[in-house]
């Protein structure tokens, strides 16, 4: 089947569940290849890394649906990068495997529930029955220490390089989750800990490491667990793949994990 038919079915099924199609987004569009590309299988992923392209091609999947960027900037503006030899290599890799890329970002965050939140909560071991209300992203868990919570989160998501700000001994129970680069504010009176992807260290207002540091220094049980952008949303692409299986049965669909880019020095 053609890529255009797959995109069309995604659009129809989004609209059927109340999500309007965004005709003007610069994100959820073709990033390589085009609507006429004959699709042999679909890979969802977080970032369109060259590693993911190789693994998808090896599994016979030539349509890739990433949540995030292909050419290292949010608009995938190739003029910002096309002077770099790596750009030509990436394009050649995509051409060689007849890859078609359609990004799926804004529409996913319009969906309810937003798969990225659901999957992240699952992967870090948060019991969904403890969410205060549907899509509140606030979980009240039995009181624990920040140190114990961070260790559990790290084990759950299998990360190598998560970062934590706050007193490891702080008693915490009210956890608010965020994904990607859009993180909740830590000054909310109903929140002890934010678990999120990525945010600015000192310039982010209430969603910054600097604010968390000062909150902890003020004796408030406030803390931040930062997973990194990639692993904070990647589980959502698994759930998006599963969702597509409900209306695309002609070709195989599976998640190929981009994975955590970082490791931690000794």
């Amino acid at each position: 089947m053609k890529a255009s038919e797959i995109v069309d079915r995604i659009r129809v099924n989004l609209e059927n569940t109340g999500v309007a199609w965004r005709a003007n987004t610069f994100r959820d569009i073709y990033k390589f290849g085009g609507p006429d590309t004959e699709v042999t299988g679909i890979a969802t992923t977080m970032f369109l890394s060259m590693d993911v392209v190789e693994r998808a091609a090896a599994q016979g999947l030539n349509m890739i649906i990433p949540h995030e960027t292909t050419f290292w900037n949010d608009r995938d503006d190739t003029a910002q990068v096309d002077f770099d030899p790596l750009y030509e290599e990436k394009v050649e890799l995509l051409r060689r495997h007849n890859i078609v890329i359609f990004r799926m970002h804004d529409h996913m965050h319009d969906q309810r529930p937003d798969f990225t939140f659901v999957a992240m909560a699952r992967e870090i071991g948060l019991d969904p029955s403890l969410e205060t209300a549907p899509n509140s992203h606030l979980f009240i868990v039995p009181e624990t220490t920040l140190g114990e919570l961070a260790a559990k989160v790290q084990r759950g998501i299998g990360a190598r390089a998560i970062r934590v700000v706050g007193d490891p001994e702080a008693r915490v129970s009210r956890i608010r989750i965020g994904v990607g680069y859009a993180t909740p504010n830590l000054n909310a009176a109903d929140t002890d800990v934010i678990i999120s992807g990525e945010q600015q260290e000192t310039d982010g207002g209430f969603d910054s490491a600097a604010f968390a540091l000062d909150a902890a220094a003020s004796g408030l049980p406030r803390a931040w667990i930062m997973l990194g952008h990639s692993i904070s949303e990647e589980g959502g692409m698994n759930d998006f793949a599963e969702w597509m299986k409900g209306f695309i049965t002609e070709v195989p669909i599976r998640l190929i994990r981009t994975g955590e880019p970082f490791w931690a020095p000794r």
Partner: protein
Amino acid sequence: MRQISRREFGALVATGVATTVMTGRFAFGEKAMAAPLPGGAGSAALPAAEILDRLRRNVGVPWAEQTIDTLKAGAETASINGIATTSLASIEVLRQAAAAGTNLIITSGTTFYGRSDSRTPAAGRGGGPGRAGGAGAPAPDPAAPPPPPPPTAPVYEAKNQLIDSNGLVIFRLSDHWRARTPDGFGVGLAQRLFGEGVTPDSGAPDLYDIPARSLDILASDVKARLGGRGGIRVIGDPSTRIRRVAVLAGTKAVADLLAVSPHVDAIIAGEIREWESSEYMRDLAFSGRPKGLILLGRVLSEDPGMELASRWLAGLVPEIPVRHISAGDPYWRPEA
């Protein structure tokens, strides 16, 4: 006190000393009553205005009209007993400064969590002006419960109380220290990591040749030199041989990494956007190029540059003690 070996810093210090001699009489005349700093033998207080005037005139680049390098708390008329530099004016750093009898804090980072450095929280939920609106912004959820009531601001209250009760004056030094050639933050970081004798490439001031070592050994060395805890993260094959590095302190765009990556084996940077630079470096390493990226975090990356600033200021303001207070690595990491 260690010597500053770089010629331009020596020249600046000399200029600063000359300035001090020239203006010293005003300084001493006005605030002779101030108590000397405990342990700061024979020191005499100076008005903040006098110190900041010397700083602005000697920083090595013309002082910009539009700049974030302004007073964030306190007044220029305040009498200063001692100066502390830091890369983040956190509550912990301010407490240490106050305990040491130091009341002018010169910080490269924010004091109130955003470029505006407003001493009261922004209206609404206060996301802050620094938010770049990048990848990942979920739309508001019409079905979600109403947002929590307007925030109390216990953190702001604690910080303002600490500042006011100790008469602290806080000044940001960021744009101008970075605008120097070479970048004061980069020079400070390179000297801390590789020794004061390290010399940048003559044509490219951010690039340094270093004794060869593997990426994992280099990352561990960097962590030890900076007193890192859990904030340092690395991309690339740990066995990659590193001989030439780019040192990019502070917050950097992907364009900065693209510009240096062809010329080095590793980039040592402060803070980047993960959806840009991390992914570029991941692809670069995957493509078979022996390259690595060591991310320090913004606060840790600017700490050595501000330590260097403290040594520069010590020459510029010899009347009172100048010290550096490290904000440390904000992050820790659970045991694996």
